[in-house]
């Protein structure tokens, strides 16, 4: 035994335990996110509880635990019906339960406002429309279809309206510019533009009236529900986003519902101050910002790496550059945010505004946070990643290849573009992907230079000039922070945060895995010998 200690085997085990703890922590994180995120969309059963005091409760069981005060088991029930009950969740002591059942006709309504509604369908009232269905369920489905068709019509009108709105806005800005340059000089043009703008606005108003008339018509179609305690509720069908009866759904129907929710998540806009609905604008904003960032960081990073590896002689200058690169990588991201705010937003943005858009001041155009400044800030932040990866891949190319090329009479530049860069491409790609993953997950600087919780428009649309660099945007990482920590009802918002987290984590992990794989393959390719 003494020898066993002396050889240090126990210490080896201790170091092994340290690694085990690190791995367990990583796994715990991933599993926690996955288990909370993946389950959210599965249509869970609505359980009806009859309590010993004669009251009822209907809801989805979210967790079991021991009551920390009494030590008895209790369960947490998501009872929804926020507008009726005041809160989404309630705790039920297991000792108070008389019986539980799964009523087949219980329905789960996803509403546009006030969260979900759990209850039972009683009937459908549709004025001016005849519904042929025999049962309320059939009638409801029929009516829902009708409403959906009508809503599609209004959506088309809405699209037209937003186009007109954009035109009117552009005309307003043009007018501002002309007025700024001289009211008298451009009087004729101003008059013409004003007329155009008024025309667009008039058209807008008429469309608006049309759509509200349609909406008023379908708003009259309502369905009657009752909750588990017997209280009635009239809900307009336009308020209903989706309708499920999870207790009577088959497994495949549930799978269908799950996939539908995933589609909604990826392609729809958020609802209810971001706690429900989809993530499309956030996903789009993240991707666009990351791509824009790559446009800035890739060339700069690659050039700097080439300088370090191929051009610089080993001297104090190279050392300085290396220290600079390391510091760029090590400076806290929030400092980049502060720099972006001071230099890009207020400095460059302010100058652009006073040079090109003086007529719009004091309303800032570029002098406020936006996707361009965010990308530039993050480009600066991720450049070291590209530099290090590119340098590493250039370093791994054997010297003989360079010498061969130079011996054949190629210039250094030709060697670089024709031989070295193609060979280093996987490494550069690795750096690029890693930098993208980093940028996708970075939030602190973005909070300062242009991310918002809810952007009314995407930074890219069909209106000229398509890319709107000055617009603010939404971001998955910020979404997590905002919904999880700034929303008024954190408990109800949690599932959405988990889903967002899972999505962000998936993006980052997939990207990094690809990068690591590429890098390892590349390392294997050129390393001729170790030890």
């Amino acid at each position, binding site marked *: 035994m003494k020898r066993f200690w002396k050889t240090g085997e126990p210490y080896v085990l201790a170091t092994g335990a340290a690694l*085990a703890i690190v791995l367990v922590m990583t796994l715990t994180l991933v599993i926690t996110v996955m288990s909370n995120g993946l389950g959210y969309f599965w249509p869970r059963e609505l359980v009806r509880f009859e309590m010993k005091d004669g009251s009822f409760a209907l809801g989805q069981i979210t967790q079991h635990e021991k009551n920390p005060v009494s030590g008895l088991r209790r369960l947490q029930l998501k009872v929804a019906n926020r507008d009726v009950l005041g809160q989404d969740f309630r705790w039920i002591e297991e000792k108070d339960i008389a019986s539980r059942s799964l009523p087949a006709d219980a329905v789960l309504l996803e509403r546009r406002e006030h969260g979900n509604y759990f209850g039972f369908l009683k009937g459908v009232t549709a004025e001016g429309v005849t519904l042929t269905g025999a049962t309320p369920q059939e009638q409801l489905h029929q009516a829902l279809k009708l409403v959906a068709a009508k809503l599609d019509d209004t959506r088309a009108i809405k699209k037209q309206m937003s186009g007109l709105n954009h035109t009117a806005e552009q005309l307003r800005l043009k007018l501002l510019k002309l007025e700024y340059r001289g009211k008298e000089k451009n009087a004729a043009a101003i008059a013409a533009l004003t007329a155009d703008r008024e025309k667009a606005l008039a058209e807008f108003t008429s469309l608006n009236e049309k759509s509200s008339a349609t909406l008023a018509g379908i708003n009259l179609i309502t369905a009657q529900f009752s909750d588990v305690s017997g209280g009635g509720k009239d809900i307009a069908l336009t308020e209903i986003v989706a309708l499920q009866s999870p207790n009577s759904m088959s497994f495949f129907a549930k799978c269908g519902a799950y996939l539908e929710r995933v589609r909604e998540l990826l392609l729809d806009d958020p609802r209810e101050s971001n706690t429900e609905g989809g993530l499309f604008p956030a996903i789009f904003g993240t991707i666009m910002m990351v791509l824009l960032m790559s446009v800035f960081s890739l060339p700069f990073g690659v050039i700097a790496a080439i300088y*370090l590896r191929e051009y610089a002689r080993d001297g104090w200058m190279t050392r300085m550059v290396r220290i*600079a690169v390391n510091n760029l990588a*090590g400076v806290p991201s929030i400092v980049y945010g502060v720099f972006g705010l001071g230099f890009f937003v207020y400095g460059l943005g302010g100058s652009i505004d006073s040079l090109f858009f003086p007529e719009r001041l004091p309303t800032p155009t570029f002098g406020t946070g936006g996707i361009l400044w965010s990308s530039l800030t993050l480009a600066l932040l991720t450049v070291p990643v590209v530099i290090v990866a590119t340098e590493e891949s250039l370093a791994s190319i054997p010297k003989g290849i360079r010498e061969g090329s130079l011996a054949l009479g190629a210039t250094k530049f030709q060697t670089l573009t024709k031989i070295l860069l193609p060979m280093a491409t996987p490494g550069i790609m690795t750096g690029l992907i890693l930098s993208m993953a980093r940028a996708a997950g970075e939030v602190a600087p973005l909070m300062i230079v242009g991310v918002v919780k809810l952007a009314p428009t995407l930074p890219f649309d069909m209106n000229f000039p398509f890319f709107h660099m000055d617009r603010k945007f939404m971001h998955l990482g910020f979404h997590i922070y905002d919904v999880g*920590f700034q929303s008024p009802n954190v408990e109800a918002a949690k599932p959405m945060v988990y889903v967002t987290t899972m999505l962000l984590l998936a993006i980052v992990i997939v990207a990094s895995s690809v990068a690591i794989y590429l890098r390892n393959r590349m390392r294997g390719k050129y390393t001729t010998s170790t*030890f």
Partner: protein
Amino acid sequence: MAKKFIDKSRRNDRLAELLIRIGGIMVIISVVWILVMISRVALPLFYPPSAKMTATVQLPAALPAGKILAIGAEEGQQGAFVLDESGSFHFFKASDGSVAASIKTPAVPSGAARVVSAEYTGKSAYNLLWDNGAISSVAVAFASVKDAEGKVTLAQDVSSQDDLSFPPSGGVLQSSARRIEGKGAVRIDRLAGDHLRVTHQLVEKDLLENEKRTNTSTEIADPLPGRLTALTVDSKGHYLYAGTDNGWLLRWDVSEPGQVRLLDTVQASEERRAVTSLALVLGDMSVAVGDAKGTLSTWFPVTLAGTGEDKRLTRIHRLRPNHGTVSVIIPSPRDKTLFSGDGTEIHVDHMTSERNLLTIKPGAAMVQTALSPKGNTLTVLDSNRTMTVWKMDIPHPEISFGTLFTKVWYEGYDRPEYSWQSSAANDDFEPKMSLVPLVFGTIKATLCAMLFAVPLALLAALYTSQFMSPKLKGRVKPVVEIMAAIPSVVIGFLAGLWLAPLIDKSILTVFLTVVIVPVMLLVTIFFWKRIRTASPLQRITRGHEFVAMIPVVLIGIYCAYLLNGVAETTLFAGDFKQWLYSSLGVRYDQRNSIIIAIALGFAVIPIIFTIAEDAISNVPRNLTAASLALGASRWQTAWRVVLPSALPGVFSAVMIGFGRAIGETMIVLMATGNTPIMSWSLFNGLRSLSANIAVEIPEAPLDGSLYRVLFLSAVLLFVFTFIINTVAEALRQRFRKKYGRY
């Protein structure tokens, strides 16, 4: 053709070389540029203030300086005015000194002939005390008027404010009057023979909106310790302050009609010098006291040890003394700046920062001094009947090295403290911008995280590089690299919304884990020895030990979780948090430093791990081989040979991890309560420099003090991480040079 091609190639080559060199240098430039840009925003905090004389007006001989009761200037320095004994305001154009208008005070009280004194009450309003003891209030207003030709002229207006007026009363020498919000008004008179009288005027309205005013007078009966030399009332009419010729400062509560209560009698001046001037600093809490020898100090009531609940006036700040008797103190209407004059020059000082901002010297002895409603225009009338107007630019009076880094006695505090509280709902708030609690929070968070992360990361790195089978190594390293890629917002979210409530429920689990897991480890080691000798398991497990450790760790944590309840009931009477509070006086925050240690530690583990693993692996294999060949065990080799050689690299790994932890924002932001407190308790939250920037900068007005202070904290972060990273990098480069391989 060929030559052309070669020329072109050469040209391209040279051009490319130039571009690439520029690109490389750009990296240095951008690092320097970042520092320069953020410093440039922070630097104006320390710029000296300036004052510019913008106009002088020579008063006509008909207005002798002695008969001028009040002066003032327009905010834009376009015009100035004086008030004479007859109650007329005379307006002058600043450009040429000509009289623009003379307006007689409207609503002169009946029977009054002459104004005895005028008291400035802020916002261009004056209380006029008439020779028959009546008080009326007037306000001066300026407006820019554009005439038909587009020329802008200044229009003046004098209006009376009826809600602050008192009927005549005899024998009044000096008087102050204040509005009482929603109730009426109060006047305080100094009568002959140093008697003080407080008169409340309560306004009641009947159903027909007819006003009825009732006056209640009370004479202050308290014996005075000396002759009265200075008197002032706060803007709400609640407290009356008086100074005597032998240095006593008195304070009365006069808020209740008919009741006057003496609260304080303190000696305000060493050597019992006469208190010559009193004024209330914006916010009505502090009173500025000037004495006959020019000493200037501010006082406010403080709960002192031994005085129980009663608050006593205490000297808080000593400002730079004037040369002679302080004849006038004017508080700034915008911040805690004080203007004090001794007859020959005016000092501008800020109370909180105790900074002497400016010294302004008029041409001759000062007769009257006034400050505009925005506090940036100073007007002085001297004995030569010259009125001089200064425009002052005092960008950040409340910021000094002292307020940022040393203890400051803020209003309402019982002792000097480090405090960060940048804004509040009211305008007269004293901003507290000490960076010390934030630096403290940053260091605390970093240390907690490092305590958690360094042992784990280094041991794991040692294991991975020295003991793990190469095949597994290829799988474990990517896992750690992916761990490094996990966005900090994800870690912060889980720490704040998942881990914090979990630990909140069973806090003891954490401590039990720290004990139980090592115990479990010892037990396993004990059995390991048996298994090792008993079976051929050793061969299989060599290089795979950590796999066997995973269940050990998991079981250890689970045991700790199970024991949590037992430990809490037996050791801490069933409620640990209650016990903590009652026996140790420590408050338990849900988002505390333990959460930070785990979350921030989680974020820096992969960084330390990767760099340390790299360094350890780069130790030449021939060293290891030699050691093993000499009969050392693998642990002895790793511990005595490899680790010492790799020490610089390992040290640089720790430093780089440290640098990351200092600047990490989202985790600290989400996993702490962001309360800027200074307590080493593990159960309290904190606020770090970086999280503070993220929290406050969206609301900081551009170029304001807060904005610049936040930039200053970014500069601090930058410099701090710069030093750490540079040292770490230097170490690493030296280490690489020693062992060659990149």
